[in-house]
């Protein structure tokens, strides 16, 4: 069993128009910048994929990564908790012009909805957002005398995520707080594509410390020295 693919371009080659795409990371931490840029490069060469629905905690920052994806007008709708950043101009301009849809979800509910998608739980109840605008139109049920909001699972056609190290079976470990949404998104997508700094043989990761078991991963691509969104933005980088 070998889930490695040879290039970033090959890794993102099968993402289709209209796909629901989960993109890992919290801000720039754990964001798969190289995979996102490969997707942009493909779009600029072929016109595909377009009309994407993207699930991420944020809406990008500056002109690289998710912000660059939005800037290319590849994203029809964004599902996120916090579309603000140091430089949110790309998303903000399109949103205020009514040219991108936004589904705003509380951060913990977003995480739990993604986990539910991966775990085969179609709906659950949470106290979060009860009595607020973000619960409008949602089913309310009382348990033990307290009201809760019903929330639905979130699934995706594809997840593109970043980890630190993988073995050829797709077992993953992460680096520090770059873990965040990545392990959940691996679970919730039909096809999960991971970029890692290092690929080792099976047995090269202690079974006790695996964070994402390989069953949740379909493709692994090696990016030995990945860029950090924060560094790129401090340099004023643009992609392309």
């Amino acid at each position, binding site marked *: 069993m070998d889930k490695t693919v040879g290039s970033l371009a090959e890794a993102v080659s099968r993402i289709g128009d209209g796909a629901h795409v989960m993109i890992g990371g919290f801000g720039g931490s754990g964001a798969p910048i190289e995979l996102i840029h490969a997707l942009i490069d493909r779009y600029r060469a072929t016109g595909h994929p377009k009309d994407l629905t993207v699930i991420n905690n944020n809406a990008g920052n500056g002109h690289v990564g998710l912000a660059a994806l939005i800037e290319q007008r590849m994203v029809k709708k964004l599902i996120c908790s916090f579309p603000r950043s140091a430089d949110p101009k790309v998303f903000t301009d399109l949103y205020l012009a009514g040219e991108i849809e936004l589904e705003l979800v509380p951060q913990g509910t977003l995480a739990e909805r993604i986990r539910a998608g*991966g*775990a*085969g739980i179609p709906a659950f109840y949470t106290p979060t957002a009860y009595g607020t605008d973000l619960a409008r139109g949602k089913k309310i049920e009382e348990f033990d005398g307290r009201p809760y909001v019903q929330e639905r699972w979130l699934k995706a056609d594809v997840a593109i995520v970043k980890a630190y190290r993988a073995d050829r079976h797709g077992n993953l470990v992460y680096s520090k707080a770059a873990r965040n949404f990545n392990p959940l998104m691996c*679970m919730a997508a039909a096809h999960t594509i991971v970029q890692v700094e290092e690929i080792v043989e099976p047995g090269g990761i202690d079974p006790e410390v695996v964070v994402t078991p*390989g*069953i949740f991963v379909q493709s692994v691509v090696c990016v030995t020295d990945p860029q950090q969104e924060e560094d790129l933005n401090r340099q004023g980088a643009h992609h392309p």
Partner: protein
Amino acid sequence: MIPKLSNAQIAWRAAQDIEDGAYVNLGIGFPEMVARYQPEGREAIFHTENGILNFGEPPAEGTEDWDLINAGKKAVTLKPGAAFFHHADSFAMVRGGHLDVAILGAYQVAENGDLANWSVGAGGVPAVGGAMDLVHGAKRVAVITEHVTKKGEPKLLSRCTLPLTGVACVTRVYTSLAVIDIEGGRFVLREKLPSLSLDALQSLTGGELHVPGPVTDLIVPEL
């Protein structure tokens, strides 16, 4: 005496349908035998509910590590690329549709795919374990079983009479006499022992066998 496959031979036949790279859960007991007959050149990864992916053969007697067991509480070993995880993550794999195949035993299977394999009804202590979870989520849920009970009664029925494990969940049944798919609420015969007539097979089956296409001879090596 009707010719029939041994348990090992049924397990062998089921093993031939496991694709290279498949993630597989084998039910406790008889289904565990399927792991022995993986075709050469194919690599399946076995999952156990209590939190291991890619476990292997039992260890030599006397070298067991009782922290390293399968869902049947038997000692196992690890293969390279194994992973440990807790029970909620383990059943996320099951319920979330991440397993390619689950192969389970059965008391009864109905032509609509209903499965009964956890309770023989009233009396005794009921115990369900992971059976009701395993029938949901795996991309393919197969059953391996004797074609009839020890008393000679059909186990493949129009409707199950024992308490259900799951509704409309089974898609293929490997029996001691035949391989039968469940499609559109019907038993569809795919393979049968060459020495057995269709009429004879039908007489041992509690639901109607449909034969929309060719029926292959069910040929299994001596084991």
